[in-house]
């Protein structure tokens, strides 16, 4: 479910050169063409969609490099809320 929403956000804002539904959860999104500028838009859309705020220490490449990494981070942030 969460991955589905992430795929949708990537489709709208990730500017990937591949269809997000054709990508594995662990696929490297930067290698799929996501620029650092596009990743900021992905971060904003994720914050809006999941009603979260990424703390600054999580604003780094590794957190947004794959759908799986995003899901784990978001799950960590929403746990107990």
């Amino acid at each position, binding site marked *: 479910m969460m991955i589905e929403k992430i795929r949708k956000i990537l489709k709208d804002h990730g500017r990937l*050169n591949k269809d997000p539904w054709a990508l594995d959860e662990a696929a490297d999104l*930067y*290698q*799929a*063409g*996501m*620029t*650092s*500028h596009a990743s*900021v838009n992905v*971060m*904003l859309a994720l*914050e809006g969609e999941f009603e979260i*705020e*990424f*703390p*600054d*220490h999580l*604003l*780094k*490449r*590794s957190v947004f490099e794959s759908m799986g990494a995003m899901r784990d981070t978001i799950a960590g942030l929403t746990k107990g809320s």
Partner: protein
Amino acid sequence: MSSHSLSEIVSQTRAIAQEIAAKHAADVDRQARFPSETFEALRKARLLTAALPKELGGGGANMAELAEMCTALAQGCGASGMVLAMHHIQVACIARHGMGSPFFRKYVEELVERQLLIGSITSEVGVWGDTRSSICACIRENGHFKLDKDATTASYAEHADDLLVTARRNQDAPPSDQVLVLVRKADRTLTQTGTWDTMGMRGTCSPGFKLTSSGSEDQVLPGSFADASAQTMVSYSHILWSGVWLGIASDAMARASAFVRAEARKNPGVVPPKATHLAKMSAEVQLLRNSVHGQAHEFDEIMSRPTGMEELLTIGWALKMNNIKVSSSEMTPRIVHDALQIIGIGAYKNDSKLSVGRQYRDSLSAALMISNDRIFSKTASMLLVHKDD
């Protein structure tokens, strides 16, 4: 191999700046020629591997010391300072990202032994100044690579021994999936496509070139340029360039001070009218100096922590690098302008002892080396997610 103590590295650089770089600076500027005398001296003093850790045979200088080196050299000749800064950046990329590779470990030994000068080609026709995007690809076959690139500016390329070049990882990779490739002098041809008749930084000799190169696949720096860029190239560039600009500003300050002191000696007991402007200028120079030193020390502090490399990948650090770059590049021309106002005609004349023409023209390149407008737009976008918490 090197037995420099750390402050010795800076004092040796200062001596070369005063005795050699400053002497040739006007001629280097006038003829837009490479400052060969300065680099011969740096090479002899084994200062071209200052950025390599001691265990790899280098000088073991940290960011603070590298910045001081760049400042010291730029006080004598801005173009020399900039070439040294660019060279340190390339060496740092290799030392910090290549040591998992037997090829690069061996290469570093050669670097120490021969004191090679490394240039850089990150620009490319068609990417409009976006260094994080490449059109050319590192084409790999049977353990070899071929790499051809049409560069808009190639830093002192003809005077460099070897070059670090950005390219797409392979033929199929998207523009943002880049690698750094070490191109050896014997394996490259450079066809000049433009001129280098610039306002300033004329001695960096960085016209456009078409590069044709090949080599062993081992020469591709391990990992991705995205990480090398965030963890090393951007930090070293923005801090060391700022160090260079601080050197230019300090040179202008020294000229303005000399002028005011000479005025004061003519009429002891009366503070010369321009001394008040000098007082204002000295506050600006201090602000710039503290900002450059503070940022360099913060980098060294981060690198002293085991999580250092990871911390450099955060948006928070990227913002700091953007801010140091834009602020020091905007302050420097203002400071040189102050010197011009204080000294007056003596600074305006190109053949006067207190001329600041070269310093002024050199300082104007600062805002263009990775355009400040581009950086502000990236900062604006990052501030949308950064909380500064």
